[in-house]
């Protein structure tokens, strides 16, 4: 079932201008957001190196988004990139050139605590070899102010599998958690069958969800589908982010999954980043940020 915004209750928060808080994103539904304990920004699908009609401004879009995030009145505690940092290439040297240039651009972020994850465009052709040279392990955990973050890699295997080794690692990590711990999963592809006809799924995503299901406060933030999307699997919510290269159509809305055509009158339509406010007492606030200030 897809969750709609009409089911949410938005509250403007002090301290994070413009952030709308959604109550009920944790199982403690009904609790009211009082204030965000912290917030982070999600970038996704920057596809550095893409050149095509779907975004004539591709060489500059990421830089503009970095500037926009740097201009936030309240800087986030950290920033995450949920994959497809670069656009794929068959040339290993060019792949590294793109990863290096991407890393150089995002080094301009004011916030220096930045976490990366690969997308299939970064990692599937060489099973993450180049990606790891630049950004290290493709899956890992970290903790921040009482929330346990788990970054999962569902792209280094070109068949879009998390794989048995990573599943065992995840199971071992989750065994250390209490059932009511706050857990945020960060990944690239949807962990549920969003639209298998367009391969918007993870081959063994059901195994991940089975491991997560005993935990009452789990939220997933991901990318891959180049659009905002909200979905619930049992009590676990999944929130897809916009891209910074081109929007993709809604699932099944057209025969092919190709990019939506560029709109010269509104060049950043459907693109952006996301600010996520976290209040462990009540929930998450999600605000979509534009590429550039209007």
């Amino acid at each position, binding site marked *: 079932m897809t969750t709609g915004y009409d089911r949410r209750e938005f509250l403007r928060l002090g301290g994070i201008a413009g952030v709308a808080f959604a109550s009920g994103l944790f199982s403690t539904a009904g609790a009211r957001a009082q204030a965000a304990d912290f917030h982070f920004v999600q970038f996704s699908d920057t596809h550095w190196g893409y050149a095509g009609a779907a975004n004539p401004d591709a060489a500059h879009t990421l830089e503009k988004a970095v500037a926009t995030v740097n201009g936030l009145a309240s800087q986030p505690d950290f920033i995450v990139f949920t994959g497809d940092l670069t656009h794929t290439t068959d040339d290993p040297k060019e792949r590294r050139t793109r990863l290096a240039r991407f890393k150089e651009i995002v080094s301009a972020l004011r916030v220096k605590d930045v976490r990366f994850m690969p997308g299939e465009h970064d990692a599937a052709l060489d099973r993450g070899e180049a990606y790891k040279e630049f950004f290290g392990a493709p899956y890992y955990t970290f903790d921040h102010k009482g929330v346990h973050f788990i970054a999962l890699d569902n792209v280094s295997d*070109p068949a*879009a599998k998390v794989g048995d080794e990573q599943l065992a690692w995840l199971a071992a990590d989750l065994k250390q958690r209490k059932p009511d711990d706050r857990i945020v999963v960060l990944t690239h592809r949807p962990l549920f069958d969003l639209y298998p006809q367009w391969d918007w799924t993870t081959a063994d995503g059901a195994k991940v969800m089975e491991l997560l299901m005993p935990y009452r406060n789990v939220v997933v933030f991901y990318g891959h589908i180049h659009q905002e999307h909200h979905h619930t699997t049992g009590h676990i919510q999944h929130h897809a982010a916009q891209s910074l290269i081109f929007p993709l159509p809604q699932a099944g809305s057209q025969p092919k999954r*190709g990019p939506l055509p560029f709109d010269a009158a509104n060049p950043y339509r459907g693109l952006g980043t996301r600010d996520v406010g976290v209040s462990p007492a009540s929930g998450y606030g999600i605000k979509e940020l534009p590429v550039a200030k209007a």
Partner: protein
Amino acid sequence: MIDRRTTLRWLIAAPAAAGLVVAAAGLAAEPAAREIHISAKRFEYTPSTITVKLGESVVLLLTAEDRIHGFKMPDFNLRADIVPGVTTTVRLTPDRAGKFSYFCDVFCGDGHEDMEGTMIVVA
């Protein structure tokens, strides 16, 4: 989702050491099936459109010319790896008419998202 949508008898085995995969539910009881060859290479299937009759038993013989590809047809809950040097066999008997897409689900480069084909099932 997929499991609720399919009523086809099907089965796909992983590539076997023998190099040929044949898997079929109730094979012995079924009549001879028409064979359809589909070749995969970046970023296309040949043919990209196949036509079968409703209720017709067919065998898809899948080969790869350049590298490993995938074959996925979610509407019928079918998927297989297509490995160079191996003929992967998929048997199906469509029970619904319409147009159904198949596509590569093993990332193969810039153009992977366009690697797809259509099975037309005519009544």
